[in-house]
């Protein structure tokens, strides 16, 4: 579904954020992208939603070269993606319901569909009761749920989450991960960038590890650190 072919990204200031990355993410998969700060996790996600284009190599989405898309085709790529940000990016002057409606309205969806879909999604993320709350009236976990709900509202085939648990305590982080896993079991491909080692270790999902822009590990059912010792420790924990 998503394929990186020898992708390198060099930012205009000369920073090489990704080097010769080749990975494939299959339909329906759940994968973590891990690595220290500055290793290129966000850049990898940005390539998928065409915020960044590769300097070398190609990123394919369903066989289509994302980097070669014309500017007027990019919106249609993004409608297939749901994006969740660490800083939520909720509109502060709109409540939860309005934030979701906005995301549907601006791609021209019918008000009737909007009402039905929003109650569906709010139910899924467990925010039905908080639908008229404004972002500043909600906890970090609730805001993240709202952000996930917005990402889901347009039926994406892929959910991209950049540090979705960055500001949350371990319990809340775990709840969010459970939610993402639940979404994945409904058939949505989920790609999560994180440096939350506890979560990664607990989830036992595919782990793509970046180090200074290189993929240094790509492992099914991996842990945050590649070592049998930590794996054993985690399993024991």
């Amino acid at each position, binding site marked *: 579904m998503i394929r990186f072919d020898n992708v390198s990204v060099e930012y205009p200031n000369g920073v090489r954020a990704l080097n010769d990355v080749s990975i494939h993410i299959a339909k329906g998969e759940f994968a973590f992208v891990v690595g220290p700060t500055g290793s290129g996790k966000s850049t990898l996600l940005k390539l998928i939603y065409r915020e960044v284009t590769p300097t070398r190599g190609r990123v394919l989405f369903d066989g289509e070269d994302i980097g070669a898309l014309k500017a007027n085709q990019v919106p249609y790529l993004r*409608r297939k993606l749901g994006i969740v940000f660490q800083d939520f990016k909720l509109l502060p002057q709109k409540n939860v319901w309005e934030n979701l409606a906005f995301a549907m309205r601006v791609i021209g969806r019918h008000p009737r569909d909007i009402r039905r879909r929003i109650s569906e999604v709010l139910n899924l993320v467990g925010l039905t009761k908080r639908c008229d709350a404004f972002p500043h009236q909600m906890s970090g976990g609730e805001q993240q749920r709202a952000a996930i709900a917005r990402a889901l509202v347009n039926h994406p085939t892929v959910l991209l989450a950049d540090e979705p648990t960055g500001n949350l305590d371990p319990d809340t982080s775990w709840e969010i991960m459970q939610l993402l896993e639940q979404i994945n079991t409904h058939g949505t491909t989920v790609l999560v960038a994180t440096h939350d080692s506890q979560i990664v270790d607990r989830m036992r999902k595919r782990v793509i590890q970046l180090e200074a822009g290189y993929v240094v590990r790509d492992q099914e059912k991996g842990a945050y650190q590649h070592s049998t010792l930590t794996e054993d420790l985690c399993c024991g924990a």
Partner: protein
Amino acid sequence: MGLRNVEYMIQEAFTGIRRNGIMAFASVTTIALSLGVLGTFALLALAANRFVLSRVNQFEIAVFIEGKTLADIEPVLKQIRSISGVVEMNVRDRKKEWEAFKRDRPDFESAGVPLDVLPFAVDVKVSDPGRIAQIASKIRLIKGVDRVNESKELVDRILAVLRVVKVLSIAGVLVLLGTTALIISNAIRLTLYARRLEIKIMQLVGATNQFIRLPLVIEGVVLGAVGAVLAWFFLTLGGRYVALMAEKIVFLGRISSGVGRAELACGLIFVGAMIGAAGSFVSIRRFLHD
């Protein structure tokens, strides 16, 4: 792009204005001020044009025709009337002319020169001062015409002044139009900056550029039009004051740009709306591309 979406965009435009009240106020004020300056300049330029033109119109062609009676000169008058561009003719009272002449040259009367030696003087008015020279030379060719006096130098000089006034006012209006567009596009860029999160989210959820742009362009049009109405209000008030002042300065007489209030309103609103649309279009374009 269905009707439902257009309706949504118009609604969004007004919501945007309401929610960003201070920015909207700042934009409207800026637009009103710059349109006010532009309008003042344009009206003054028009008034100057009209003023110069009215001076020119006082200069007409004086034609002297030989003849003893009015009936004698009638065929000549007919020919003059048939020249295109001639608007009006006025045969001066020969007796009055004669009195004036006698005062100048008392020796003529004592010599017993009769009244009808004097040619008839006819003042010919033309529609366009630029054609005075051309029409004068046509009249000169008519048989029976004694002398044609067109005060050529004066007319030429006034026409030259008129040309300068015209060029300067067009240049001035263009420069002001450009500056106004720039100011408006800056004001709109500020409102865009204040809403960058909203725009970013629209982009990330897959709104087309058109869907992002249109409500903002409509917003620009509305702000431009509202600014224009304010500018119109001040210009009309200011115009009345200026006209009053001018009437007190006797030699100027009545000064007017010749632009009616409704015309002024339509013109300003049109320019304001166009500039608002262009300003937001340009700033959004830049905004969406980086």
